């Protein structure tokens, strides 16, 4: 380790497999075992991942900090760095540095109801906080998940979420916009159609979390507000172009904040009083 915060630390891809046509799962471990075990982060934080020769890009951590040793990412192939990542096989080396950003305010969320609303690849950051809540189940009151995807084959971690439905200590509602398989047993419709299925929550003591495609925010936020969740307890995580992750390169600036330092987790109040957030 040196004192240069920009230095990518070598890490090995321990496991990788396809989640959907264009999304892959990566399980990664730092070569330095001590670093692997002491890498501390909060759900909602992100890391900068380097692929030799292709460059560096920010990715949210999908694993929960309650399971140390391995870092997990869900990555969609959209650009040059992700294309290079997709070409890498298990055992290949990448560079990782971080964690960066604020992450979810776990201290404040303890003892509250947690309502997680996921759209598509929005599962990537929210899986971290959900698994953290489940690993520390006694610290939270009600935990509920509403998860929507375009079609069954695009529901990332499908099996994981079907398994959650079997647990008695949380609520899990799944939906697809359209069923092209003919044997989808869950709901059909956009994710907001799941809200009526939700059992009663205590809105004053609820944190509402949302992540998904940009189009979804407006509608989900409206549902959260309708439920009576206070604006500062509605949390979302956003993405921006980033080149440094530590507030120097400027690319993720919004109004007077940097997404990398002051985000990527923002409240609904932030969205209302800062422009350009969503």
């Amino acid at each position, binding site marked *: 380790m040196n*004192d240069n*915060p*920009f230095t990518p630390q070598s890490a090995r891809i321990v496991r990788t497999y396809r989640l959907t046509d264009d999304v892959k799962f990566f399980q990664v471990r730092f070569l330095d075992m001590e670093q692997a075990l002491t890498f501390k982060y909060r759900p909602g934080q992100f890391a900068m991942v380097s692929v030799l020769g292709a*460059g*560096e890009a920010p990715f949210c951590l999908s694993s929960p900090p309650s399971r140390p040793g391995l870092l997990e990412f869900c990555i969609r192939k959209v650009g040059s760095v992700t294309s290079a990542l997709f070409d890498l096989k298990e055992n290949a080396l990448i*560079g990782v540095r971080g964690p960066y950003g604020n992450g979810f305010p776990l201290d404040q969320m303890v003892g509250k109801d947690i309502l997680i609303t996921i759209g598509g690849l929005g599962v990537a950051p929210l899986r971290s906080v959900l698994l953290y809540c489940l690993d520390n189940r006694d610290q939270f009151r009600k935990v509920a998940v509403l998860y929507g995807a375009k079609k069954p084959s695009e529901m990332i971690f499908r099996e994981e979420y079907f398994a959650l439905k079997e647990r008695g200590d949380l609520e899990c509602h799944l939906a697809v916009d359209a069923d092209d398989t003919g044997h989808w047993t869950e709901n059909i419709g956009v994710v907001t159609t799941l809200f009526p299925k939700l059992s009663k929550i205590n809105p004053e003591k609820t944190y509402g979390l949302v992540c998904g495609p940009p189009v979804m925010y407006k509608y989900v936020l409206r549902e959260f507000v309708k439920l009576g969740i206070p604006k500062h307890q509605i949390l979302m995580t956003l993405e921006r172009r980033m*080149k440094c992750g530590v507030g120097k390169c*400027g*690319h993720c600036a919004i109004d007077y904040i940097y997404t990398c*330092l002051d985000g990527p987790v923002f409240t609904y109040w932030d969205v209302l009083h800062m422009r350009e957030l969503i």
Partner: protein
Amino acid sequence: MRIIKLKKSHFHPFLETISQKAHLWAPVKKGDKYAFDRVEDFSRIEMKTTRTLLPPKKLMVPPSFNMFSFTADGYREDLSHISPKILFGIHPCDIHGLLTLDKLFTYQYSDPYYLKARQKTLILGLSCWPDEYCFAKSTRTHIIEEGFDLFFTDLEEYFLVWVGSSQGDDLIRMRPELFEENLTDAYIQRYIRWQKERENAYRTEINFVAMPDLMELKHKSAFWDEAGRACLACGSCSMVCPTCNCYNVQDKLALAGKPGRRLRSWDSCTLLDYSQVAGGENFREHKADRLRLWYTHKLQAFVSKYGKPSCVGCGRCLVTCPVEINVQTIAKSLQGEDPKAFWYRLQSEAKS
């Protein structure tokens, strides 16, 4: 702070001695402009310059440099572009520019490239006289009380020399016999008179106190769209601004056997792809949005974070922007003046 004086005839002998310690950089003539350059022949140094084309940030974070070299074994930090320097002839506004960058580059995380270059550079400031584009008095950055090792005020046959740091004192002690401690009352009076005259020499004034509120109140004003139409999105304003810090990072592969390089280069938020993410989504596709971001950062955001604007009044955007979009014309537009009066492209559109 200790203030002593140096006879002008002793100036070159002093430079002679201290330049043995580290390379000397100073403003020299470059075409019809000035630029900071390495100087071995002291007669090249321009003592009465206005602003240099590029601010001294180019010595702390060069326009493009290697952050890392990389091989299959990993990434190796590259600091080879950093060497000890003595930077002479930097004006108060530009020293304020560096102090502003200090804040940005050390906020929460320290940028080792900037910081190491900064620590290895001795700052020898020099007094200046404003031209019609300087408005450092409006930003209160026309005088400087910190951020230099030595500061030279050009006053008749002497330089009045402020010793601002222990390292500055070390330089003096290399040739103590060249300096004089005694400042007569008459000489001090001359300095006071000079300072007063300089205060009155600033012709361009901008009211910065009102800017954060005006930025907020005029956020949706149509003049931003007009500015967007006039703007060439060339990024020049960012390149010449002493406090613009944005950069891009790219990996370059080399021919077989040679390590690749991770390159860091200056970037500008006025360029089209600045806020574009993978997949093509661009959060600021319109020039108006990008210009507004530039000015939000300078005039509003920096005030809320650090208590003052990040503009230091050097006037470089005034002399550089080909279509006259600069802190002064934006400020005037925010205060309600018709932007068509000063943005060239709009003027020519109106004529045709």
